[in-house]
């Protein structure tokens, strides 16, 4: 771990001015600093900022403070009632101890679990641009089959972000100059392309202050996470779904995917392909065809392609059953 400066922000405006790397729960950043994968010169502690509230918004949605812990958010009665997919995704992630520390804003910005990213003696374009990708041709069982590039095949590890994505969440931020903006989650992340080290559109010093959820959507909500052990393992495939039936046809379908791509993945064409259709396996297969049309395995992760199809179909069957 490199020596670093430490400053504590007294208010949101000061956090931006202090110009450093923000730290809240630190459940990911501290590990990476110990390994010198992350080497910030300055940490700005934002844990004292008043960003722990959950409040209703005028449009019937929710505004979740960036420092609300994953445990608290998962347990919040209105989340459990109206945004079940989010509560379930949160509880599927990490461990009880980590969820007690990890925050809403930090969870969105956690880094990949790619083994080569974590090993400083190995090439990694995300850690050290231009050094190459150790995972391509190496151990890539946990890696991306969608949205990857020849420079990086890492996945985004968050469960929460997958649920946030299907819920059409947006982040509120404050930039270093004090101005603020709202970024839909679908626009927050960037695909790796040639610059896998740049993961989001956030500017230096830009702080996520809250996550906004629109008013609850009608429909059945599901979060299904497929992993190598029953807890404390990252998703190999996960599916967040909100499906509303009208009679015997699907009226609305929201679907987001984890474990498959460098960001929580959503494909409007997959959803459009389901709307107005009967909930049949043949129709689910068509949706999966669209989702996986460009999926590309790297050897060790080839199984994710059929696994994603099977999981999607099972989730859709489950969310539409009884119709």
């Amino acid at each position, binding site marked *: *771990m*490199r*020596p670093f400066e430490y400053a504590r922000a007294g208010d949101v405006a000061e956090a931006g001015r202090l110009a450093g790397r923000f730290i809240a729960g630190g459940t990911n950043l501290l590990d990476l600093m*110990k*390994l*010198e994968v992350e080497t910030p010169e300055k940490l700005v502690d934002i844990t004292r900022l008043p960003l722990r509230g959950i409040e209703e918004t005028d449009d019937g949605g929710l505004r979740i403070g960036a420092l609300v812990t994953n445990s608290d958010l998962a347990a919040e009665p209105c989340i459990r009632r109206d945004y079940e997919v989010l509560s379930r995704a949160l509880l599927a992630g990490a*461990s009880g101890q980590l969820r007690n520390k990890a925050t809403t804003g930090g969870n969105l910005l956690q880094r990949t*679990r790619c*083994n*080569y990213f*974590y*090993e400083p*003696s*190995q090439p990694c374009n995300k850690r050290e641009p231009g050094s190459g990708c*150790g995972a391509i*041709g*190496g*151990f890539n*069982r946990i890696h991306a089959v969608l949205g990857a590039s020849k420079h990086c095949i890492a996945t985004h590890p968050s469960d929460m972000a997958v649920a946030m994505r299907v819920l059409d969440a947006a982040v509120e931020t404050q930039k270093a100059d004090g101005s603020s903006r709202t970024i839909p989650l679908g626009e927050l992340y960037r695909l790796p392309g040639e610059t896998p080290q740049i993961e989001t559109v956030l500017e230096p010093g830009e702080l996520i202050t809250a996550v906004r959820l629109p008013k609850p959507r009608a429909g059945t909500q599901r979060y299904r996470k*497929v*992993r*190598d*052990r*029953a*807890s*404390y*393992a990252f998703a*190999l*495939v996960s599916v967040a779904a909100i499906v509303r039936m009208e009679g015997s046809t699907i009226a609305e379908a929201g679907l987001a995917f984890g474990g498959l791509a460098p960001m929580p993945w959503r494909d409007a064409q997959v959803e459009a392909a389901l709307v107005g259709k009967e909930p049949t*396996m043949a129709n689910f297969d068509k949706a999966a065809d669209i989702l996986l049309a460009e999926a590309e395995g790297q050897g060790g992760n080839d*199984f994710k392609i*059929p*696994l994603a199809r*099977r*999981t999607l*179909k*099972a989730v859709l*069957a*489950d969310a539409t*059953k009884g119709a």
Partner: protein
Amino acid sequence: MNKHVMNEAIGETRLDRATQGVIGKGVDRYEGKLKVSGKAPYAYEHLVGEKVAYGFVVPGPVGRAKVTSIDTMAAQSLAGVLAVVSGDRVMHSSAQPMGPDVPAMKGEIYHYNQPVALVVAESFEIARHAASLVKVEYEALEGRYEIESRRGTGRASDGGPMAADTKRGDFEKAFAAAEVQFDRTYTTPAYHAAAMEPHSSVAKWDGDQLTVWSSCQLLDLNVQQIANGVGIDASKVRLLSPYIGGGFGSKLGIGPDAVLASLGAREVGRPVKLALTRQNVFQATSRRGETIQRVRIGATRDGRITCFAHESETANAEGEGFFEPSGISTVFLYPGSDRLVTHRVVTTDVLTTSAVRAPGEATGMLATESALDELAEMFGIDPIEFRRKNEPEKDPQEDVPFSSRRLLECIDEGAKRFGWSDRPKTPASRREGEWLIGWGMASASRANSLMASSAEIEMDPAGRATVKTSMTDIGTGTYTILQQIAAEMLGLPLDHVDVLLGDTSLPESSGSGGSWGANSAGSSVYVAAEAVVAEFAKRLGVEAETLTLKDGHAISGNRQIPFSEILEGETIRVTGKIEPGDTSNETNQASYGAHFAEVAVNATTGETRVRRLLTVGAAGRILNMKTATSQCYGGQIWGIGYALEEELVVDARNGLIVNHDLAEYHVPVHADVPKLDVVLLEDRDPYASPLAGKGIGELAIAGVGAAINNAIHNATGIRIRDYPVTMDKLLPHLPEEVGAAA
């Protein structure tokens, strides 16, 4: 010294009479309160309050190389850095348990991320930062990082835990002539012990005397290894390991930390503390070797095994003699007059392989107990009936009798408790919504061994006893069972017996390993206690046999004399020693058991969850029902890991251990573990030791993974021979149709 050589079966003892009534009871751990209140100091926690320095290991960033220079300038100029220790003496991995040698690096990198230097600094944080500033220049050499493509290139090692080859008759001829031939190959990956407490040491010099607190299992060997590593005489070294946070074989030989901390402390002139990081533990200690195992079984058409071959290939580093002895139980477990058990070591430039919990059985029975299940299915016989049909009457290799073998009783008891008669007879026939349900069973066996060990009992004038031995307690319950043995033998309440362990200034012991600890160290306490009783008898002028001891009193005829009266203000000290003898050769000794598993395999995803797990064991006298049962729980959980999750992944391009932390090296978590059931049969083995007990620490891991795999087959009809059975392996064979969850 009072010595007992195990040359003949033991008769009735004070343990059988159980006058005090403490032997076998599931009493709480002797040191339990200290541990749960944080008052039991582990290696790194010694020398609190002393001015110490801190070490951090510099890893070599390549798989195989000659080191050309180590540039320490930048590190040494950092404020707070006291020294950078490098050179030939740096240990690149843990020492093996077979001898006093230690693996010194001698200018080379033998495996990825091996230690190449040690930074010593005023704080852990400074040392860690400085370590990243050390520049290692090297000339890369070609490395060999996997065994699959190099099958057939292995060597027959004569320095392993058993003979490389064990043969009887002419297997090839018998197999060729067999009515039914079974020939399958199974693979197991590399594993890591991954004990909770990382390998850690604190070293302190007083003149030329070195004291090391380290996390070690075999202190009397380990002290020699430290001396060798540092380059001094063993008489100058004292080693202490009072409490150990798990070893599982990975601490049988010293870790590189013990020597590095000692060298660092000598260099900077003050004590040095060194704890390996979790990454270091994975990369710089030792591991279990990957295996490729070919199992061939010949049988008659009606299901009688006539010949058995188990040929294993595994890995180790250049010049290393140890090999994973996968065929260790195959030698005697099932019949066949023509037998062939072989082991070959393919050399790789990956972390040294060594003993990990149940070396041999843990990997070998994943193969053989699956093979038995496959054969039973071929014959259309229930796997229990198939085993019953093939139960040998004596050791089929050596023709000697089994000292005691209650395998079938374990199986029958387990079958009854598990409800085996309701097992789905046809694979893939039971389904609950999305889940395919299956049951499986497997045998367990673990070779028993007795080692030389000694212990002192000190009786103070008040009649309290203290047991002293260099024996270790690696979390198994050694403190507790030694207290129980002494209390039972001497007729003392438990709280009148203290136990001192884990210090080479105490009488030499077997140490902990190979499930021999309880039997060996426990027997030495038995022998010492017998000597105390003999002394009491002498003083009372009676025959020892006529003396009954209870609650601190000697009872003879109608006399009842308090020990304090017998001792007359004196402190007496006696040492007892146990040595293995003829019974080890004249009988085949092993513990036995049976596992029963129910699994649910998700028909959509291939995720497997264990729903029920029962182990029935017979391991001679159980000294403490609670700690013995806990040992079995641990074995069962390891079995879940080996069946479903654990795999140390090595990048075949460069030798990197890819998953070198506990987030990515998957061991079972609580959610993976169902309610575990363990039943230990009432048993005595008079040939095994004066305690009539046998090893139990490794029994429950033997075969349990195969029981789970057999249950997966029963659930799905799919047979995976490449452990662990992860979803990607099941997925292509699962029903194509995906249904809704129940």
